[in-house]
């Protein structure tokens, strides 16, 4: 008897008229809670590839609006860290939160992108068989469902936005060129432009100035610094000159965990850092 009433209660609960079943609720953009000023929480993250610890109890907090530089020797785990944040790789343990409310480990790559995290790859990756314009159009912040893209047309605002970004990345004259025909530096910029199109909250930029001329590097530095504030930017770079020119806070990664954090000068005079770097050179 008891069981029957229990079941009936369950059924009543299930069919409550004032509620919608969770699977029928349209997936809505969760907004990020940054009331604690921190945009990205990475806590106790461990990840190993066949026994090799690529990330080792890593803790990292990124403030909202900050421009953070991430440095470290080859294989320190910088790219792997970005893989974890963007959903490409799942850590073995640990937690990754976007704001204090969104657990990134529960989301797939495309959902994370839609939440407002953009990523530039270490090796510039643009759609080479399509024009610069198309590349930017694809990256537009828009409904990315199949039917919506099938029927979508560019609105005047969207066109303006594309023009604006073309201006920022200095590719106005190349807009109808195939992306594959761009120089290496231009591809890097196009990829940054694609990030901007999506209007992201957080940008993860992996080695943006590799293969750029000094002038191009300088312009990239300007661009990235101008983005911080409104957006949060994490830059991975080996070019120390470049890091010095943009960095406010630098985090040094070593063997999958944080070795030191602080201003460029602090970090450079840190004895652990000196030891590791000198040790590598010896």
């Amino acid at each position, binding site marked *: 008897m008891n069981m029957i009433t229990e079941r009936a209660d369950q059924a009543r609960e299930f069919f409550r008229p004032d509620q919608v079943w969770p699977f029928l609720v349209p997936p809505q953009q969760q907004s990020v809670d940054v009331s604690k000023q921190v945009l990205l929480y990475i806590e106790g993250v461990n990840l190993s590839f066949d026994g090799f610890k690529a990330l080792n109890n890593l803790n990292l907090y990124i403030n909202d609006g900050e421009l953070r530089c991430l440095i470290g020797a080859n294989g320190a785990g910088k790219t792997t860290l970005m893989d974890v944040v963007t959903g490409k790789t799942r850590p073995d343990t640990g937690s990754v939160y976007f704001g204090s409310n969104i657990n990134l480990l529960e989301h797939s790559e495309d959902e994370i992108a839609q939440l407002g995290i953009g990523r530039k790859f270490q090796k510039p990756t643009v*759609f080479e*068989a399509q024009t610069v*314009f198309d590349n930017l159009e694809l990256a537009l912040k828009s409904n990315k469902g199949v039917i919506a893209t099938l029927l*979508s047309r560019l609105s*005047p605002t969207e*066109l303006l936005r594309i023009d604006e970004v073309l201006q920022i990345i200095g590719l106005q004259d190349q807009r109808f060129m195939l992306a594959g025909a761009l120089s290496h530096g231009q591809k890097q910029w196009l990829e940054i432009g694609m990030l901007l199109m999506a209007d992201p909250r957080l940008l993860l930029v992996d080695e943006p100035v590799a293969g750029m001329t000094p002038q191009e590097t300088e312009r990239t530095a300007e661009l990235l610094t101008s983005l911080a504030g409104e957006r949060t930017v994490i830059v991975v770079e080996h070019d120390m000159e470049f890091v010095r020119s943009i960095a406010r806070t630098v985090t040094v990664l070593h063997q999958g965990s944080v070795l030191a954090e602080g201003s460029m000068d602090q970090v450079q005079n840190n004895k652990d850092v000196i030891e590791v770097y000198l040790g590598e050179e010896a």
Partner: protein
Amino acid sequence: MSTSGMLQSVFKDRGQPGGRVMPFVIILLVVTVLASALNLLTPEGSALHVSTYTITLLGKYLCYAMLALAVDVVWGYCGILSLGHGAFFALGGYAMGMYLMRQIGDRGVYGNPLLPDFMVFLDWQELPWFWLGMDQFWVAMIMVLLVPGVLAYVFGFLAFRSRVTGVYLSIMTQALTYALMLAFFRNEMGFGGNNGLTDFKDILGFDLQSDTTRIVLFLLTAGFLCAALLTSHWIMNSRMGKVILAVRDSEARTRFIGYKTETYKVWLFVYSAVIAAIAGALYVPQVGIINPGEFSPINSIEVVIWVAVGGRGTLIGAVVGALLVNYAKTRFTAILPEGWLFMLGALFVLVTLYLPKGLIGLYSQLKQQLGAGKPAAAGTGKSSSAAKTEGAGA
């Protein structure tokens, strides 16, 4: 015209792979209508007469062209190398074949009004459940679309969601068509075993042997092929088409800008399977038979070669490739039947080495070289206006 409209037309002008299809569609329709008229209106002995045999042969080629188009849509545009599209073609064909079987009624050898001959032969007493309703044309037509469509959805969902790509995916598609072939060979499956379904009499009451029925089927095939070309062109020129190309060139990048790529792949795969199925359904009444041989893995591989020869990633290329290679096959097998597979292999090697973009690629390269002398501005103006009219037409 709005700025966005202008931009759109400029885009098409920038030669998205696929190029313009409208001129080709018109040529195709004119040729088929002309051939039909010459068949019906000129006397048999006349020099202009097109024989019914030729019409049937052309109709068959057009079905193959549609199948090639289906493969091109997934392979050329999205990088999904399907080596099993013959399965969708054959399933569409079987659904049509079942309808045609039931149309025979009591005119079969055993004169059983309900059961097709092969069932009487197997001593079956009643129609299996999946044959019920197949005497209704509309039910059969729904099955033509539904069965291959659902199979493609389930297959695509499982494969793409587990991120199977490249060679592994191709092998899975081969396995799919091979497994179906083995299944359809079995008598107990209820599809006529290795003899398949044949001896059809009429379709919707029209005699399948009559010239007019054959002409109508031929024209219908051309019509469906054109519709498939135009629809595919529309899809590939929409933003969805750009996403599809993006998936082909860098799926990871596409994910990281927020597209659920597996959903795109699944739906494109379903679209492609449905085109293949329609082609199969049009094929069966024209050739008069469907048997498990159509599931053979070799068939699906041949389709890929047609597409490669014509030029993958160009809609017209797939059609042209299928037409030319099949014409060559008809000619060649008349002289040296055993040699064809070697020819086909050699053709594939040659195309892969020397014509990576196929015949269409060669054609546009030649055109570019010839047109290089002309002033560029005039050329652009002319082609962009062409793009506009074509945009309106499509």
